[in-house]
């Protein structure tokens, strides 16, 4: 089979899985919905592998294959087709997405067991994977936009999965609204580009780009910045990031899949996919790089202060995506995507391990309440440490290679990019500190009651299920989490999923070791054949400096965390009181929520109220709608009045009509 046939299969399996689980929810017994969904994604992964094998059979220049199912509209200068583009970049993403997704599906089969929305959950999850694969395989802007909007919708559905939790529904709405801002950016950006290239097809548009745009063309810069708005919203970059921490209201596997491994990296993919345009718009590239750097730093500081374990990981995700966005914006495409992949492994692993602890804590997510789980949950502990070491960039774990490569390429660009280099290493230090803060607080120290119970073989269950965020009392019926909590130590599917990811988190770095092998670079090269920045030569001195610096900084961060939270736990409190304002800034997430509230939400509400009070009531309601409605009403009454039911009147009108038409025609003669 050709690579594109495999590409269509990649899409077909999740779609079929979604329909089966979605429509068959009432008839699928037990856990079968979960297994069907998992199988569908796994088949999709196999199809992606098939596409990979098939694509590698082509010569490197011919590794961009387009296949179109049908034309949706091909009139008035629009060429909207349902087409996919199978190239190394798309396949790289498809493999990462379907691979991690199948593991997370597997994990979910245990994790969501006994939840009353079991089949619905898997249907949503399959829908998400389908949308994400549609996004990455899209062969033109229209399909990209459709996939882009679909993942936003899927994310909304999954964040609000426990729909009777008010906090979850509010978080879902927030995520959706901010994502729609991004959608608007994407659509408008597409328009700016389409206006000049005259085609929606990716390959044609990329080919046309150097001919229709000069470097720094105003429309192109505007278009690229609008695309960046889309990317920032989806990838939770400042200032459109506030939805991501709230999105942790969703079930933990969802956080692992959507809000860590896949969807939030769509922005990175977008910039990489559109690199042709971005390279012609250096100003937009600079915006991307600076915002990425700012996000990685700010998110790192917030990660130091918040206590909800999932939110710490969420801020860490933002921060890591900041690296990726910065990377692809400065031309480190392979490095950025490499980091995307390794991050997908270790971050999904961290979330899964966190989910396991939360299961052991019966839904409690605060780090303040966790302590000493090391002995009770050895497997979770090991996974968390592996994920943590990879995240902190300790050699030879995967994060070490990918993160350092991004910073290396950034430094290569010279001049002010050195500032980004420095910021990157400060961020790396913060990463190590907050990551090991989590580990030391949750796994070390005197075990809490729940940990003690678990050591004795009894899994803690809350007497009364509560919303961990607000303490509201809940039941375990549909719309709330189910009655059973799952931990990795007791569920084989969870252990398998985490084990495979742990292997990835440790070993994925080997794909691209500086000076040794360049698997990722070489594989992705055909997609970036038209790039002037791709895989430039590196200076050896800088490379070694980076590797050493990365290791030292990572270890220093861990050491600091050890000192603060294990060796002398009082220090943390002292620092907190000494640096009161700074701490408050961080724990309040740099007041971004308040800032957006002040700058956007409140004025929006105020303008809305004012407009409703005056313009809406007087002009719209009164004049426009009022007159339109009364016109419709009056004419409706008139039509009915004529419709008397009496034949003589009908005939009379008929004769009148004939006379009118006759008169008109005779006047024409």
């Amino acid at each position, binding site marked *: 089979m050709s690579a594109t046939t495999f590409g269509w299969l990649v899409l077909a399996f999740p779609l079929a899985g979604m329909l089966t689980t979605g429509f068959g929810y009432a008839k699928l017994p037990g856990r079968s919905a979960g297994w069907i969904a998992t199988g569908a994604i796994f088949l999709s992964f196999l199809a992606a592998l098939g596409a990979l094998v098939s694509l590698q059979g082509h010569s490197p220049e011919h590794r961009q294959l387009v296949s179109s199912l049908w034309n949706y509209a091909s009139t008035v200068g629009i060429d909207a087709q349902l087409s996919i583009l199978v190239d190394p970049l798309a396949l790289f993403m498809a493999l990462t997405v379907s691979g991690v997704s199948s593991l997370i599906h597997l994990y979910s089969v245990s994790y969501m067991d006994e939840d009353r929305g079991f089949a619905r959950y898997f249907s949503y999850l399959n829908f998400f994977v389908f949308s994400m694969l549609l996004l990455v395989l899209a062969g033109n802007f229209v399909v990209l936009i459709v996939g882009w909007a679909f993942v936003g919708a899927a994310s909304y559905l999954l964040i609000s999965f426990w729909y009777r939790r008010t906090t979850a529904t509010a978080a879902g709405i927030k995520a959706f609204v901010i994502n729609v801002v991004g959608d608007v950016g994407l659509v408008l950006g597409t328009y700016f580009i389409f206006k000049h290239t005259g085609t929606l097809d990716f390959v044609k548009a990329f080919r046309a780009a150097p001919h229709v745009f000069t470097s720094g063309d105003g429309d192109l810069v505007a278009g690229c910045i609008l695309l960046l708005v889309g990317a920032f919203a989806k990838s939770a970059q400042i200032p459109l990031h506030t939805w991501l921490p709230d999105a942790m209201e969703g079930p933990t596997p969802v956080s692992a899949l959507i809000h860590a491994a896949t969807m939030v990296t769509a922005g990175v993919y977008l910039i990489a996919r559109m690199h042709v345009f971005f390279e012609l718009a250096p100003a937009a590239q600079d915006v991307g790089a600076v915002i990425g750097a700012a996000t990685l730093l700010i998110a790192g500081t917030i990660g130091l202060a918040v206590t909800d374990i999932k939110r710490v990981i969420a801020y860490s995700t933002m921060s890591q995506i900041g690296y990726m966005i910065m990377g692809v914006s400065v031309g480190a495409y392979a490095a950025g995507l490499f980091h995307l992949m390794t991050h997908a492994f270790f971050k999904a692993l961290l979330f899964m391990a966190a989910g396991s602890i939360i299961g052991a804590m019966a839904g409690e997510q605060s780090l303040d309440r966790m302590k000493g789980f090391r002995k009770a949950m050895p497997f979770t502990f090991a996974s968390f440490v592996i994920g943590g070491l990879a995240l902190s960039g300790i050699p030879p774990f995967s994060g070490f290679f990918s993160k350092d490569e991004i910073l290396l390429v950034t430094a290569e660009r010279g001049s002010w990019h050195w500032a980004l280099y420095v910021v990157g290493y400060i961020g790396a230090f913060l990463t190590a500190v907050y990551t090991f803060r989590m580990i030391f607080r949750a796994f070390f120290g005197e075990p809490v009651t729940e940990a003690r119970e678990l050591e004795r073989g009894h899994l803690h269950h809350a007497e009364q299920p509560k919303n961990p965020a607000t303490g509201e009392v809940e039941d375990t019926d549909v719309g709330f989490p189910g009655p059973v909590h799952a931990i990795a130590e007791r569920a084989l599917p969870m252990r398998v999923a985490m084990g495979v990811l742990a292997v990835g988190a440790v070993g994925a770095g080997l794909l691209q070791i500086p000076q040794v092998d360049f698997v990722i670079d070489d594989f992705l090269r055909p997609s970036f054949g038209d790039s002037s920045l791709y895989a430039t030569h590196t200076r050896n001195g800088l490379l070694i400096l980076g590797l050493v610096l990365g290791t030292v900084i990572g270890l220093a961060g861990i050491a600091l965390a050890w000192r603060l939270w294990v060796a002398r736990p009082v220090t943390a409190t002292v620092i907190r009181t000494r640096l009161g304002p700074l701490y408050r800034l961080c724990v309040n997430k740099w007041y971004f929520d308040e800032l957006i509230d002040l700058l956007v939400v409140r004025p929006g509400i105020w303008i809305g109220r004012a407009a409703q009070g005056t313009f809406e009531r007087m002009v719209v309601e009164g004049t426009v709608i009022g007159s339109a409605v009364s016109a419709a009403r009056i004419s409706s009454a008139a039509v009915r009045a004529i*419709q008397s039911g009496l034949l003589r009147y009908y005939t009379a009108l008929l004769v009148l*009509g004939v006379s009118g038409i*006759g008169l008109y025609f005779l006047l024409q003669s």
Partner: protein
Amino acid sequence: MTLAAAHLKGPHVDFAGLSPLIALLAGAVLVLLAGLFRARWVRERAVGSLTVLALAAACGLTIWQWDSQKSIVSGALRIDDLSLVLNLVLVAGGAAAVLLAWRSEATREAAHGEFHMLLLSSIAGMSLLAAAQNTVALFVGLELLSIPLYVLCASEMRREHSLESGLKYLIIGSVGSATLLYGIALIYGATGVTDFGAIATAVSNNGLAGDPLLLGGIALCAAGLCFKASVAPFHQWTPDVYEGAPTPITAFMAVATKVAALGVFLRFFDVALLEAQSTWGPAIAVLATITIIVGNVGALGQSSLKRMLAYSSVAQAGYMLAGVVVGTQLGARATVFYLAVYLFMNLAAFAVIVARERETSFGDGIEAITGLSRERPYLALSLTISMLALAGIPATAGFIGKFYLIDAAVSGGYTWLGVVIVVGSMISLGYYLPVIAATWLRAPTDKEAPSGSAVQEHGMAVKLPRLAGGSPELEGEPSVAEPDAGGATANRPQPEVLFVAALAAGATLFFGIFPQPLFDLVHGAGGVLGLL
């Protein structure tokens, strides 16, 4: 002797070209005879099946004729892509009507044989009309389609409204036919020919475009055809007749009559009178505008679904006229495309109404479908798709059809007509959406509270022959009428009705997403008229 034989040699008959028509008319004779058998299964099953068979044969023969372009019967009829496509649509509409009428009151009261014979003759008339290429064939076709319909409307003989509907249709229809005939006569007087092509030549060669006689003829013809297509101000029979007629017949009229009328509109105006397009174009455009407004405004707030759909069909006729007005290939294609789409979306709605008429005692009142989603989710889905499509919501075929029409109007220089279509669609949401809201948002109405006027009208065939003309045959066979007479049909399975609903709704959705097959189908239809 040989000379005489040569003279007596019969005309050449192209049986292949005529074959779909022959199948329909032969089928008509056959079902009439089959209906004479006393055995119940013959009348209730075999007759209907034979009708479907005849339609299937006509459909097959139409497909067999595909891609042929020829004039037959001395140039009276034209077999080309346009008439073949319209034939397919007509046959599909007819088959749906047979299925919807499978267990209906009307077939029983009118006697199965007669009912189906009339239906087949009417379809034959429509098919004739769609192929007509001279004014005589046009008139014959028109009458062949109309007269059986007058009878069919009155086929529920014990229901006052059905009889009223038939009578009204007959009287107003006669006025319409007469108008058309006068128009044809005037055109003949002006040009001296009846053939469409010859009329076109005569008009252009003799500079008749400004001739009062010709223009008067055009005016009367336009009025007559507008009447058949229920274009305002000649639409007034539509709501009354649609509401009164048995629902399967209403469904049939709504789709098939439109197909035939607009088909002949295309052929007559865009071929014979194309030369005078600058004269009649604005007039028809104004009529289309009035139609769109009157239809959409009139449908607002109707509580009878059939009446609402009647007004909606008036409005839809206005949309379709836009494709005729511009006199371009694109316009012709858009009109034919919309006709095909219109078949599906309307049938879905009518099938649901038929199903609910038999399940509840509310007749076609909106109460019948209130809360439908809880009782019959798939019917509710069909109805919803149909309403959304009629309103022209994207992802349904109705959207593509409307888009196509607007495209045709704009590129034909009638941008304002495109705007009118859009405004009309906006108004139309005001009556399509409440139907959807009633199906999904409201709780089902108590089925055992028959106190509305709709119920009395529907009357459940009270066992008195209220008016003269009640079938005497029925008296002898109470056992036939008995089981259904009390409205006790509720919840009896009606697979054929559900099949029509599902198929029509499915097609509406399918062609909204994959319009390409339909585009391909209608592509030829525009080319055959010799338009730009």
